[in-house]
């Protein structure tokens, strides 16, 4: 359902040019659970951003459901991210001025939904990540692991077809990490959600269907 062809990403600053991704081609099938590994700075987050259409590759092409994506309008892109994608960011990106429940409701605000629907869906998502007792807290009042789980709840609340998770277990202890992994595995199995996950943990990667290794922007496996 997602096809990357010869993706190249170059970051240019005034002084340096970084080749973050070098000729990456990748096919991700519907319902697949893919993990990406590689050393820090090898381009994993960049790749995830490009898959999620948050960033534009310098070269190459992304097709989603056989459709080219380079000519999508701002509105179409927003709609795609809202309906089809769930992002779990490496650094959570919660809004500190909103309570946990409001943070989780956020993606639903950008589609047609009633206040009650939003509340119900958000509560349900928070239940899945085991945070039902923290809905009225602000993110600053939560531990790192709890924030991570709020971010997961926000990613799954809109029932997306694809979840892009950037080290979702990176900040969790092994028990917590396994719980989060189970949530993702369950989403993949029962709902058929396509998941692309960046991880540093070989054990986690083993539980997924396929592993892609990056090194210095190039695909090595």
């Amino acid at each position: 359902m997602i096809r990357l062809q010869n993706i190249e990403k170059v970051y240019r600053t005034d002084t340096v040019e970084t080749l973050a991704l070098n000729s990456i081609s990748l096919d991700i099938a519907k319902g697949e659970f893919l993990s990406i590994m590689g050393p820090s700075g090898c381009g994993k987050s960049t790749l995830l951003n490009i898959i999620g259409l948050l960033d534009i590759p310098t070269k190459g092409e992304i097709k989603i459901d056989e459709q080219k994506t380079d000519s999508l309008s701002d509105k179409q892109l927003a709609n795609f991210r809202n309906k089809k994608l769930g992002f779990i960011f490496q650094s959570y990106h919660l809004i500190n001025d909103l309570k946990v429940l409001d943070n989780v409701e956020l993606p639903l605000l950008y589609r047609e939904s009633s206040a009650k629907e939003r509340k119900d869906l958000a509560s349900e998502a928070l239940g899945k990540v085991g945070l039902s007792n923290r809905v009225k807290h602000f993110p600053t009042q939560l531990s790192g692991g709890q924030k991570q789980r709020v971010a997961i709840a926000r990613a799954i609340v809109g029932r997306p077809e694809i979840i892009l998770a950037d080290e979702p277990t990176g900040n969790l202890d092994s028990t917590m990490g396994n719980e989060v992994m189970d949530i993702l595995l369950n989403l993949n199995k029962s709902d058929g959600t396509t998941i692309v996950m960046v991880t540093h943990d070989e054990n986690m990667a083993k539980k997924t269907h396929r592993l892609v290794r990056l090194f210095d922007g190039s695909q090595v496996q």
Partner: protein
Amino acid sequence: MFKHLLTLIWNKKKQNLLMIAEVLISFLVIFALSTLIVFYYLNYRKPLGLEYENVWVVSYSNPLKTENGDSLKLFYKDLLNTVEALPQVKKTGFCSNNIPFYQNTWSGSLKGNGKEINNVDNYWVDENYQDVLHVKLISGRWFTKDDVLAKQKPILINQKLEKELFGKQSALGKLVDEGNRKIIGVVEDVKAKGDYSTPKVSMYMKVDTGSWHFIQRLLVKVSPNADAAFEGRLYKTIAGMMKNSNLEIEHLVDKRKSINYFSLVPMIVSLIVAVFLIINVALGLFGVLWYNINKRRGEIGLRRAIGATGKSVSSQLVSESMILATLSLVIGTFFAIQFPLLDVFDLPKEVYLIALVLSILFIYLLVFICSLYPGKQAAAIYPAVALHEE
């Protein structure tokens, strides 16, 4: 979305206080200024109440060494006839020195209908005054020569005084001043202190034998082509009759200009001050919004990532500003309406009301304009970049 924004604003009340205070203060300044402007404008829209073109004012000091009213009267009658005989003169009339557009005032109180009205402008005029200045008669009649014979001294009052004394009733024929004076006519209000002033309650009394010793002004209505040469001739004619008098001829056109200028100065000064203040406030607002948006790049990136379009991000930021402005305006309006409620400055209520509406619109416009550009910038933030920075 609206409720979401309210929640967001409420949760950030501390940070938002600065902006609310800033908008509140600028609102109050704008309100004060627009009250002044509206007041002046509404006054300006009202008729002047007289015709001042081609009216010259001759000021003289009393040349005769007599207090005898009859001989004074004879002398001035002679003077008036001589001046009126000049070719360019249409009409002349004597009056007290509180001529419209002059700074002089002469006021007293008037009792009538069981009331006493203070601060009534007293104008001493003769029967020609009307033909010179064309004060508009609303009802009744102007003075005539025969008025000296009347038992009760005839007076005219203006509409404002009629309303204060008698309400909706007509004042015509009513006795005032404990039965000593009779109202024979009502005239239109005159904006005696210039185009931007409000008319005061006024009464007109006829110059009589007893008043000649303090009458030192002669109004001369001349034809439109009367020039400086004629003014010289007029001066010489009068000077010839009043040997020891200090003579001065002024034009009502000029007096009107200068008194208008006089009342405009405070307005222009406050306008300049206000413009600087508004620029300051606008820059401040702009700065606060700009700062907020830069502080919220991560949030903006996130919203884009979960499905906000650039447009909805910018309209969110503009809406937030507008909601904050509304909060300030609610507080500001509470303060502003105290002025008409407590009648602080004795201005008509409609002045405050119009000023209030104008200031609210102005503030909304200001906040809207100031948030437009930062909002647009926010929409242009690239999601991946904003998220990366956090």
